């Protein structure tokens, strides 16, 4: 049985195209291959619009900064603002809370007290992890598996853990963070809560998503959200 390519049939000899002379057989081969290749290319190209339609929209250009007026936010209270689809906690920390944040005994319980890991912009790489100590701005997504931690600012001797200084407690697997978003040792979460790029155009306006003039920080450069 002669083989002349994919169109060969092994049926009755009266109508099989394989019974031609080798010369025409070679020409038919080329034509067959060319037609199949051209047709195949067309079918493959036809899949392009389908795949193209799955492309996510251009989100880069459509993200304006979110302005938040905190003038009416009392000390000790927190508001949650949505930015890039994520919750952002804006906490008005009391002077007592800020004092507790600076204690060495607290730093000893933290995994990354000096914010060595890149989880915040350079202008927030300080003990209060913010531009001004009074207002804390952190992305409220636990760095373990992504739940939203609850706000527990009041110090308590027993709950949620012994000698609780005040901060955030994640309900899912028990990760704890202080009021600057720094993670406690022993928590399943590996990193501090991220601080988003933000600026304060006025002392009581927080603009999330924009950097203060002269600084530059890309939120996608952090270690892990």
């Amino acid at each position, binding site marked *: 049985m002669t083989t002349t390519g994919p*169109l060969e*049939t092994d*049926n*009755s000899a*009266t*109508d099989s*195209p394989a019974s031609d002379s080798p010369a025409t057989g070679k020409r038919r081969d080329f034509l067959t291959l060319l037609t199949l290749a051209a*047709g195949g290319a067309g079918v493959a190209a036809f899949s*392009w*619009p*389908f795949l*193209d*339609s799955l*492309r996510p*929209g251009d989100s880069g250009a459509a993200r304006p900064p979110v302005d938040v007026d905190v003038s009416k936010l009392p000390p000790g209270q927190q508001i949650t603002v949505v930015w890039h689809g994520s919750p952002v906690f804006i906490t008005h920390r009391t002077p007592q809370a800020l004092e507790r944040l600076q204690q060495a005994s607290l730093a000893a319980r933290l995994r990354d007290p000096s914010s060595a890991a890149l989880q915040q912009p350079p202008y927030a790489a300080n003990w209060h992890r913010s531009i001004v100590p009074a207002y804390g701005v952190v992305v409220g997504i636990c760095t373990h598996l992504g739940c939203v931690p609850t706000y527990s600012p009041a110090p308590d001797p027993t709950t949620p853990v012994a000698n609780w200084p005040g901060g955030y407690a994640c309900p899912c697997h028990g990760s704890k963070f202080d009021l600057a978003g720094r993670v406690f040792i022993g928590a399943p979460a590996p990193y501090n809560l991220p601080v988003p790029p933000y600026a304060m155009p006025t002392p009581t306006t927080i603009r999330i998503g924009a950097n203060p003039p002269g600084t530059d920080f890309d939120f996608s450069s952090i270690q892990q959200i």
Partner: protein
Amino acid sequence: MTDAGSRDRPDEQEKAGLVPWLDARLPVVSAFRREYVDYRTPRNLNGLWNFGAILTVVLLVMLATGIFLAVNYTPTAAGAFASIEAIDRQLPSGWLLRSIHVTGASMFLAALYIHLFRGLYYGSYKAPREVLWLTGLVLLAMVMLTAFAGYVLPWGQMSYWGADVAGKAVDAIPGVGPWLEHFLQGGDAPGDVSLHRFFILHMVLAFAVLGVVGIHVAALHVTGSNNPLGIEPRGAGDTLPFHPYYTSKDALGLILFALLFAVVVFFLPDVVFEAENFRPANPLHTPADIEPEWYFLPFYGILQSVPSKFGGLLASVGAILVLFLVPWLDRSPIRSARFRPLYRACMGVLVVCFVLLGFVGRHHAQGGWMIAGRIAVVYYFAHFLVLLPLSARTERGIVLPDGIAGAGRRGA
């Protein structure tokens, strides 16, 4: 299991593992070879026999584009129009997917009408192919319902008012009409409930069509294809293996069809896009000219030509139902119109009537169109109910050729 002994011998062809392994457990490969490679097909098929394959390919294209459109579509009265505008404008390649889908609906029904005509003309509905014919008509009804439901989805002016007119047609049924309309519509007027239902109906029916196509093709492969002479093949000399003869011929037909399809999609969108449907649905403003898509116009013409509302509905639905009876109305042993001079003339008049009814529908059966429409409706039903049974009487004494090969242009 002790009957595995016959399977212990290796496959005769000695090809390596996977294909014979699979085929021994689920004979897909050998079935494919039997039904689409070696399958004996009459050697004298003409271009009209391409349309089955064309319809299958267009169906697959419609399902694919439909899925990708549905992924981006919002089936609510408030959001439908805007979601389709978003597909058309902002979704990458969305305009192309939508254009292919909209044009595909018209191309599909055009091919379907040609395919149906072929069946009527060449007697493909006669024994032993009655089930093939009936499954085909079931497919016609399903496709028409699918197309109608699909047209409602953009929720433009024509979508809304087309659904409203259809509701009024159901309302015209004596007795149960108003209740049935209210029940099917889920309310007083087309709205969120009916739109949801049309959406699901459209998707489910489209995939059901695919299933019934499988039954239709299975029925075909039991009897084999008819041919322009209407004479059954007598032996291998009258037939050819499907591959490579009809694969190559179908491929050519498909490419030419695709060419026409592409010209409409890219250069003549006005032919398939109804301008009025670019206006969002407004229940308080009826457009000046409500009319269905072109493929429904002949039935719309029938509907409008009959004086009573319910009578019109009966006549237009009856126009499809009468087709189901054709294998039993036409008792002539001669299949193909090629050898039936009276029947051939009748078919010509039928086609003219059908197109004429389309124009009647477009002109809403006003004035002279009403008279033309009534004549055409009378002829349409007379063709099937009177002329078809009687034509057998004029065909006594017609001599058919000996066989396909013998009657071919050059002979065996």
